């Protein structure tokens, strides 16, 4: 494998040779770029309403919004095919929507309703969508990284051993910069490197894990791709605030990972505009820093590019935003109308695949009966 250092746009790729030095994103059909813009605006609007719903106590538990990072989920998802698996951490609403989950299922999940993508059993941190090849939302920092390696192991095995062909799929495994410091990631990267698994570990490097800035949390903070090099992986650093750039960089990485197959690691530079979760006063970072990133808004950037190319105009943007607001409002209405999961039906369902004893989903839940002496099953 040639270890060339290439750059496209503001990305730096190590060991990855893009098919062309030109931007692929800019030559895509107008329709595609407009879809990206639409999706980013949808995620933004969805998250704004999520925050309101949380404040109104319609959403409980831990809730982490994706505002500021939209170009990452949308650009990365666009760089792969729909059957390619995606797995991520708990800041997962953006990935779910970008992957095609209907906003109403996502909202209903956070409302804890039966119409949610996981029947209200998972919540904000656990968006799962089998039809859209989204393998969760995982709440324990780093937990999804061995799973990402496993998804890649699985697809490769199916293609090569069961179907006796060549490996087809690429897995995108998203993680936060805080997850760089979990042992699980390092074991997963070593396995992926050893077994040449087609998985891309995409670090959504927003500079902070809760109140800890990356240089207080990890070594080589300015050059985290060094960690991947130790595991023999391809790596890239990509400006994640510009979706055209995200797509171009990711396309090159994805192509190489798919054709080799081999793992890769991406230092995706981004920023979360809001607090870590819904109760974070953000005292650990200067307001000026926040403002400088806010002026680097990924949505405004693509919008202005489309304006400058005369592919879009202010009026159509307004109309699009209005339509999206309606769509998100409708998702809230839908979530509100969806009933809560029935305790008798759901509490004991989905514990085991084969129902037995108290887990048949219809028996009276244990805690609603009282004495053990009244119960028959063990």
């Amino acid at each position, binding site marked *: 494998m040639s270890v060339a250092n290439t750059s496209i746009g503001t990305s730096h790729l190590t060991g990855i040779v893009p098919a062309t030095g030109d931007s692929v994103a800019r030559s895509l059909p107008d329709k595609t770029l407009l879809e990206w813009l639409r999706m980013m605006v949808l995620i933004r609007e969805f998250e704004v309403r999520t925050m309101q719903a949380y404040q109104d106590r319609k959403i*409980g*538990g*831990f809730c982490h919004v994706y505002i500021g990072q939209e170009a990452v989920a949308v650009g990365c998802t666009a760089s792969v095919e729909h059957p390619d698996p995606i797995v991520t951490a708990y800041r997962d609403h953006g990935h779910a929507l970008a992957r095609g989950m209907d906003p109403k299922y996502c909202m209903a999940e956070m409302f*804890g*309703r039966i119409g949610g993508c*996981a*029947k*209200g*059993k*998972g*919540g904000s*941190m*656990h968006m799962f969508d089998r039809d859209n090849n989204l393998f969760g939302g*995982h*709440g*324990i*920092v*780093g*937990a999804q990284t061995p799973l990402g390696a496993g998804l890649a192991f699985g697809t490769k095995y199916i293609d090569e051993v069961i179907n006796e062909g060549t490996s087809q799929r690429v897995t995108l495994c998203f993680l936060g910069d*805080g*997850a*760089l*410091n*979990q*042992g*699980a990631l390092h074991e997963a990267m070593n396995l992926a490197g050893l077994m040449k698994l087609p998985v891309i570990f995409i670090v959504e490097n927003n500079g902070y*894990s*809760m*109140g*800890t800035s990356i240089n*207080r*949390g*990890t070594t080589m903070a300015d050059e985290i791709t060094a960690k991947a090099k130790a595991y023999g992986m391809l790596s890239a650093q990509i400006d994640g605030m510009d979706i055209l750039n995200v797509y171009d960089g990711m396309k090159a990485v994805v192509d190489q990972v798919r054709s080799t197959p081999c793992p890769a690691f991406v230092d995706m530079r981004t920023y979360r505009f809001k607090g870590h979760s819904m109760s974070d006063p953000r*005292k*650990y970072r200067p307001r000026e820093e926040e403002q400088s990133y806010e002026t680097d808004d990924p949505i405004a950037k693509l919008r202005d590019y489309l304006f400058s190319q005369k592919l879009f105009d202010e009026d159509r943007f307004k109309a699009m935003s209005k339509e999206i607001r309606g769509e998100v409002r409708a998702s809230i209405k839908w979530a509100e109308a969806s009933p*809560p*999961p029935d*305790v008798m039906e*759901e*509490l*004991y369902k989905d*514990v085991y695949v084969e129902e037995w004893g*108290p*887990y048949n989903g219809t028996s009276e*839940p*244990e*805690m*609603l009966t*009282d*004495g*053990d*002496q*009244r119960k028959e099953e063990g």
Partner: protein
Amino acid sequence: MTRVIEYRDALNEAMCEEMRRDQRVMLLGEEVAEYDGAYKVSRGMLKEFGEKRIIDTPISESGFSGMAIGATMVGLRPIVEFMSWSFSLVAADPILNNAPKMLYMSGGQFGCPIVFRGNDGAGGQLGSTHSWCVEGLYSNVPGMKMAIPAFPEDAKGLLKTAIRDDDPVFFLESERLLSFKDEVPEEEYTIPFGQALVRRPGSDCTVVSFGRPVHFCLEAAETLAKEGISCEVIDGRTIRPLDIDTIVRSVKKTNYLVVVDQSWSFGSPGSEIASQVHQHCFDDLDNAVVRVHSADVPTPYAVELEQAYLPNAHRICEAVRSVTYNA
């Protein structure tokens, strides 16, 4: 003399006092220093003790727990904060395989004076991975001690004891109790391990619990008193060592026992207590021991499911009524 303070500040006082009297004690964990603690338990400690003793760690539970255990082997007495006990699972090997077994494996040469502490139990719709009640899972391991205070006074007194203890202590706090205020002595005190407390005397049924559910038991006892059922509520305070004597004494008097334990029922502190009581009080019991636990399913997110899942006063009342029906 007492004053009313929050559970969180009781914990803070315990750590500060012990750090003042013993240089070997230090605190490490995620967000404990510059952020003043994810739940503000270590508020002000960085300022007082400096960054050499109040140490922010990366999200590396396995690494920093193991590191702290290593440091005990040359004489330090670290306090390790888990933001939540749910996150200690990635550190299961060091905290279960190293800390509680070091003394035994080394034939008595190396002890492990360490405190692991953090929030335990459901925090309110935190879902399946973030709602662990580790008392069920971890109390199984010999060599460790486990304290689980329900009141600020105990939080402080037990934590001071934990820090002075020469064995590893798993200290289980509750996010839902951190802002709970109650009286705490002004003067210096410690509370010994292995001493349960009768929180409410009664004659008809013994109700034993530890940690946050003690409050539900007291609530249930209040309701049941109006129906003429007098409950004796015992707060176990530590699970290892377990003060079985106080429980047995009470059961010999009331002849009925309900155990309330927020962990799952299978192989739990609740089942252990039931078993020991059946052994010691076989002839005194007028009914089988009844246990109230979290439902035997992963913790659900939806509020309706979670409420049905967790132990609460209503379920405890039902349990007491059902066990005493033949009284």
